[in-house]
């Protein structure tokens, strides 16, 4: 396990270095000038040059690259170009918000989807097609709904009609009650689509093991069907489910962009979109660096859980 950890840490460093390099050069390949984005579309040539010089964009690309690597090694993530705000400060503010949304979305969807998917598998195995179809098809229907549409529908219903949740309001620690209420809607919206995916994966995975020998043995031993399905079959079909949970968590942490936009949640996704739109090189570079770290870390954790769930898994 220790050797594995070292190996993975080394891999992580290589990956991060690759990400840093690729992002640095790729973002500069995109047409669009941060100086122009900063000054507005009526900026004239001379003023543009002055801004470029001020931003350090007038030196050769390789020099900019070396400067960037040096600053990362010093853990100095610098300021954004457009707003002059500290990037680490922005990330530290956005991260807890996105993290909260992601964690609760995953927990909520796991709580609903796994029993639902297992039930569907159970019905399917019993030959109760109608109940199985009801669950599978409704999951599919929900999955097909666009996130932005569902977000608006839920907002219309829960905010405007029922007046349970706010549609807007400050998201910061100064207003804790408001913060919790504001995060509920995005969690609900994201959880609904996660439930749909996860329930279908669970159904397939459980259904696969329901005809295995050990399940038959459990039945033969006189265990109740519920115990057979939920204790024996579900546990043994956890591997694909964990993979999906891990991946969806990583996705949620990174890609809640639409939901963050609609609900104006100042999370990581909003930060990245802002950075890209304003061609804020340092901001985009560092947010993506952070994304890469999260992905690698989640992969690592998923692997560890694998090992715990199925000791036969070898690294």
């Amino acid at each position, binding site marked *: 396990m220790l050797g594995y950890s070292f190996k993975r840490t080394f891999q992580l460093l290589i990956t991060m270095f690759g990400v840093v390099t690729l992002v640095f050069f790729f973002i500069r390949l995109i047409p*669009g000038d941060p100086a122009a984005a900063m000054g507005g579309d009526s900026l*004239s040539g001379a003023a543009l040059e002055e801004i470029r010089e001020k931003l350090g964009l007038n030196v050769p690309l390789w020099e900019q690259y070396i400067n960037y690597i040096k600053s990362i090694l010093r853990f100095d993530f610098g300021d954004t170009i457009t*707003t002059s705000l500290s990037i680490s400060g922005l990330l530290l503010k956005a991260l807890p918000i996105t993290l909260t949304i992601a964690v609760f979305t995953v927990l909520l969807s796991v709580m609903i989807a796994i029993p639902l998917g297992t039930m569907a598998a159970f019905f399917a195995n019993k030959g109760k097609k109608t109940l199985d179809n009801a669950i599978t098809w409704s999951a599919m229907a929900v999955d097909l709904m666009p996130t932005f549409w569902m977000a608006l529908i839920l907002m219309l219903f829960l905010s405007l009609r029922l*007046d349970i949740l706010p549609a*807007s309001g400050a998201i910061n620690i100064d207003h804790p009650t408001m913060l919790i209420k504001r995060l509920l809607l995005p969690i609900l919206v994201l959880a609904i689509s996660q439930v749909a995916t996860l329930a279908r994966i669970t159904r397939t995975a459980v259904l696969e093991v329901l005809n295995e020998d050990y399940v038959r043995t459990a039945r033969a031993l006189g265990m109740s069907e519920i115990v057979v399905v939920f204790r024996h079959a579900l546990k043994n079909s956890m591997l694909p489910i964990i993979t999906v949970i891990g991946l969806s968590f990583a996705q949620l942490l990174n890609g809640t962009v639409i939901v963050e936009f609609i609900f*104006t949640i100042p999370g990581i996704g909003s930060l990245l979109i802002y950075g890209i739109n304003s061609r804020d090189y340092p901001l985009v570079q560092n947010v993506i660096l952070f994304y890469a770290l999260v992905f690698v870390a989640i992969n690592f954790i998923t692997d560890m859980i694998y090992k715990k769930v199925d000791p036969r898994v070898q690294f």
Partner: protein
Amino acid sequence: MKSWKTGLIIFIFFAFGILAAGCETGKNNAANSPDTTSITAKTTSAGSTSPKILKVRFYDDPAGFDPASIFRIENENLAFNIFSGLTSYESVSGKIIPDLAESWNTTDNKVWTFKLRKGVQWQKGYGEFTSGDVLYSYNRIKDPKTASPYAAEFNNLDSITAPDNYTVIITLKAPDGNFLNQVANYHQGQIVKKEVVEKFGDKLKWNPIGTGPYEVEKMDPSSEMILVRHEGYYKGPALIQKLIFSIIKDESTATIALQKGEVDVVMRSSLEQNLAILEKAGFKMNHTDNYAVSLKVFNLKNPILANVKVRQAWAYAVDFNAISASVTPKTQKAAKSILLDWMEGYSENTTQYKYDPVKAKQLLTEAGYPNGFTIKQLSTSATGISESMQLEQEYLKKVGINLEYDLVDTPTLNTKRNKGEFEISGRLLPAINPDMILFSYLHPDNLAPKGLNGASYNNPELTKKLEAARAEVDNTKRLKLYEEVQQIAMTELPYLPTFSSNVYWPSKPNVDGIVINKLAQVNFYTVDIK
């Protein structure tokens, strides 16, 4: 297994806790939240002295509020209420009025003497405003180190002197009848304080301190910005104590927030369907019409577009009136000139192009394109291809012009447009003043990529008139010259004015005094809650 179950129970407990808290506080929304104005309205009507708070929807991430670098209307709006200029704009008419300068005089449009108001106080205890602040602010804009995009606005400045604390004398290199616009409460005209700039440096963007009616209490650029009234404002404190600008990017969300009473005013609402919902529900539809004009920029370096008959054919081929009437009846109407109808010097006494596909076809034939041609328009993916754009395509197809849209993201669009890498592109002309618009877009000194003349238009006759107009002291003669410039521009059509847009700030019925000026800004000094 056991710990798993315990975890589950804790989670369910927590989840229900949050939900219950949400429901409970949701029901008592107005009573619990100190920010909502429904409570403000109730208590003030009952005669209590609790402060008046106005919540305003702010529609994008703010990019900072340093007058030397600020751009984008929503940011300018806050700056407009924090800073002051020597002059300002009257909200309804758009006319220049005194602000920090009590009065001014000039005999030749070249030497301008400003008498400053005495006793004006800076916010946050920075003392009295004097002529030294004006000198510092203007020199700061001109200083290449500041890298202000507005430095060019002061290119004509020869010298600025301050004989005493309350007098500023500005001498221009060439006479300029529009100079009062350059020193107004907008961009380069906003006065900053030396000590503040030196104290905050790069962070000045988030610590703007001016002499205007409102000062910053809190800046949370990802969530909300709070301004409180400047108690020492020279006209006396504003009526509303606190302005809370909440960032709500999605317009449908903003509409719901207004309906729910979470905000009192929606800064800029531009979707027809949302405006219709709010109007029907009885909200105030504060708006200003013709605040900016959209131009189609024909790149004259393109051999097809270089032919004036092609450009005129385009204007005849599309019925912009019908498009705006059917698709955007509230937010847009067809434009008739490069200038806006409320501007000094605006004239409709120019070539007007009424929808006439037969004439368009005839002009195309004369130009050598009897079967039309295919051409691309550079456009932003941020708004996509709107219904109006699709209709324009259809109109053009009828006369044989095949218009394709080349969608790129906004920063790419700006770069390509500045470099002149397009066949056709669009511009939304900011409403500043006629002189600036005509000079920027038509004068050869401003040819792209150096300046805004993206059509690469150069007509010596027109240039001569433009320069004569700027120098002209007699106002009537100057306006006559502007009219002639517009006549030439509308005949030659390097830019085709398509639509003029309206700005809406819907509000609750109890919000009074939202007057959107011609720069799409609201002076919150006169706003009140009944």
